C-alpha cells in the first residue's frame, strides 16, 4: 500500500506549496486513505481516528495567530558547519538538502504576532528541517525570541517538534540547552508568561531544556515526548516499556504536563491562558476569529 515516507500535511498558508504535495495520504494509525483537502480542513487531524499529523512551522503559525499578524525575525540565520562534521554525508550537504526541501534556513521560525487580540512572541520548531534538531543557529533564534518576549513584555509561545540536540554540531549544540534555559530564567524573573506546546515528537535536549521550562505546558494528543528514545532505553536496559510510554497522555498522568489539547481546540485554550496571564485580559471582548475552529467545524468528522 502506498504510504508517504513523511507524515506532514500541507495546510493553506502563506507558503502554500512548500509542504509535501501528495494526492492521497494514508493515516499511519488507522490506515485510512485520506483526502488531502478534507485532511487540511481538519487541520491535519485524521478525520477517522483523530491521529495528529505533523505540521510544518508556517502552517502551525498560520493555524494559531491572526491572519497577517506574524512578522518573522532572523529569517536569514542558518546553520554553520563549525566542526567539519561528516557522517554518511557532510553536514554542509545535509543543511543544503534541508534548506532546499523545506524552504527554510533553520529548524525554527520565530517572530511577533497577535493571537486573539494578544500581542505575543511565537517560536515554532519544524521537524522537517533535520528532525527539528537544535544546533547553534536554532538555539540562537530561540534565545532571540525569548529575549524579545522579555524586552517587549509579550507572552511567549514556543511550539516544539524536535529530535533533540543536533549531533553534527557537537558540544555547541548541547550548550544551546544551557543558553535557552538561562534566557528563560530571566523571562520568568521578569514575570512574563511562557506557554509551551509539545507536538510530535519532542525529545532529548529540547525536552530537557526550554520545552519543559514553561509556566503552562500543553501537548497534542498522542505526541511522543521524552528524553531518551524508547529504542535507546530498551537497548540500554532490556526493560519492557509500558503501553503508551512517552505519549502526551502518559506524561499527563505522570504530572509532567498540564493538559492534552486536541489541535482544533488550541487557539481557544491558548487564548484563555493569555486572558488569564496578562493584566488586561479580562477586558478584552475580542471575538476569537477562530480560523482553526471554523476550519475544523467545516470538516466535521464523519465515520465511514
Amino acid at each position, binding site marked *: 500500500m502506498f504510504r508517504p515516507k513523511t507524515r506532514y500535511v500541507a495546510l493553506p498558508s502563506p507558503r502554500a506549496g512548500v509542504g509535501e504535495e501528495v494526492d492521497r495520504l494514508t493515516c499511519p494509525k488507522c490506515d485510512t486513505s485520506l483526502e488531502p483537502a478534507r485532511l487540511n480542513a481538519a487541520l491535519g487531524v485524521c478525520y477517522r481516528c483523530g491521529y495528529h499529523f505533523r505540521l510544518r512551522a508556517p502552517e502551525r503559525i498560520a493555524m494559531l495567530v491572526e491572519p497577517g499578524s506574524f512578522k518573522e525575525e532572523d529569517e536569514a540565520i542558518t546553520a554553520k558547519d563549525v566542526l567539519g562534521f561528516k557522517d554518511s554525508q557532510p553536514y554542509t550537504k545535509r543543511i543544503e538538502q534541508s534548506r532546499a526541501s523545506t524552504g527554510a534556513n533553520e529548524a525554527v521560525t520565530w517572530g511577533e504576532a497577535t493571537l486573539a487580540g494578544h500581542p505575543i512572541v511565537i517560536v515554532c520548531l519544524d521537524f522537517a528541517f533535520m528532525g527539528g534538531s537544535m544546533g547553534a543557529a536554532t538555539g540562537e533564534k530561540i534565545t532571540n525570541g525569548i529575549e524579545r518576549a522579555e524586552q517587549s513584555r509579550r507572552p511567549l509561545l514556543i511550539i516544539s517538534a524536535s529530535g533533540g540536540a543536533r549531533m553534527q554540531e557537537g558540544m555547541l549544540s548541547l550548550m544551546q540547552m544551557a543558553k535557552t534555559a538561562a534566557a528563560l530564567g530571566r523571562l*520568568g524573573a521578569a*514575570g512574563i*508568561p511562557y506557554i509551551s506546546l509539545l507536538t510530535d515528537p519532542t525529545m532529548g535536549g529540547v525536552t530537557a531544556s526550554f520545552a*519543559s521550562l514553561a*509556566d*503552562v505546558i500543553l501537548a497534542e494528543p498522542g505526541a511522543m515526548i521524552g528524553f531518551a528514545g524508547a529504542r535507546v532505553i530498551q537497548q540500554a536496559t532490556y526493560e519492557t516499556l509500558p503501553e503508551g510510554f512517552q505519549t502526551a497522555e502518559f506524561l*499527563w*498522568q*505522570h*504530572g*509532567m*504536563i*498540564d*493538559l492534552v489539547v486536541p489541535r482544533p481546540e488550541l487557539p481557544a485554550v491558548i487564548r*484563555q*491562558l493569555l*486572558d*488569564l*496571564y496578562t493584566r488586561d*485580559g*479580562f477586558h478584552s471582548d475580542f471575538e476569537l476569529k477562530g480560523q482553526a475552529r471554523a476550519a475544523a467545524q467545516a470538516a466535521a468528522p464523519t465515520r465511514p
Partner: protein
Amino acid sequence: MTENGSLAAATWEQVELARHPDRPYALDYIHALFSNFFELHGDRLYGDDHAIIGGPAAFDQRTVMVIAQQKGRTTAERAMRNFGMANPEGYRKALRLIRQAERFQFPIIAFVDTSGAFPGAGAEERGIAWAIAENLVALARARVPIVTLVLGEGGSGGALGIGVGDRLLMMEHSIYSVAMPEACASILWRDIARKVEAADALKLTAADLKRLGLADEIVPEPAGGAQNDYGVAADAAGAALKRHLGELETLDADRLVEQRYQRYRSIGAS
C-alpha cells in the same frame, strides 16, 4: 443528658454538618465565584493528584491563583480524588502554583476541605511530611496576598499544607482541627467511640477558632447549612473573599509578608 453531654452533641452536629455529603465542595464554589478557571495539572515530579486542584481564575477584574482540596461527589469521583486526601504530589503541585502566583503577582485563594493528608505507605515513601513542610515556608514567604477559606473539614497538617495565609476565613459550619476527632480519640484514649467527646474537647468549630483568635471571620451559611443553598453560600464566600483581598492588596509586599510573619509569630506567644 448532662449539660456537657448536650454541648458535645451540638459540637458533633457541627462535625457532621462539615462533612455533609451534599455540602458544596471546592469546585462548586470555584464555578460559582470565578469565570475562566483554568485547571493546571501535575507536580512535574511524579504525578497529578486530583485531591488538590488549582490554577488561575478570573475574580473581580483580576487573576487569582486558586488552590483547593476537592472531595468527590460520586463514588467514582471520590475514588479518583482519594476522598480529598492528598498525596505528596498534591502539595508539590500546590507549591508550583504558589511559585507561579508570586511570579505573576496573582493573589492566592486557598479552599481547605480535607480530613487530612493521605495516610498511606506510598505517601510516606515520597515524603508527604517534607512536601507539607516546604509549603508552610513557601506560603509564609510568598509576596502576594493569601486568603484561606475553610469550606468543610480542615484536617490537621494536610489542611495547613495549603492553609497558611494572611487571613483565615471559615464557613459557618466548617471545622478545623489538629486531628480529626476519631484520630484524636484513638491517639488519646485508643477508643474511636469517644470521638464525640474528643470533638468537643478539641475546640474545632468555626466559632471556637474565632474565639481563639485564629479565624478572622465566619462566613454565614444559609439556614441549616450550605448544602441547602449553594448560591447563597457562594455569594457570602465571594463577598468575604473580595473584601479581604481588597484590604490586603493595599499593602506593599514587604509589609504584607511581615504582617503574616507576626500573625503566626504571635500565636501562643506569652
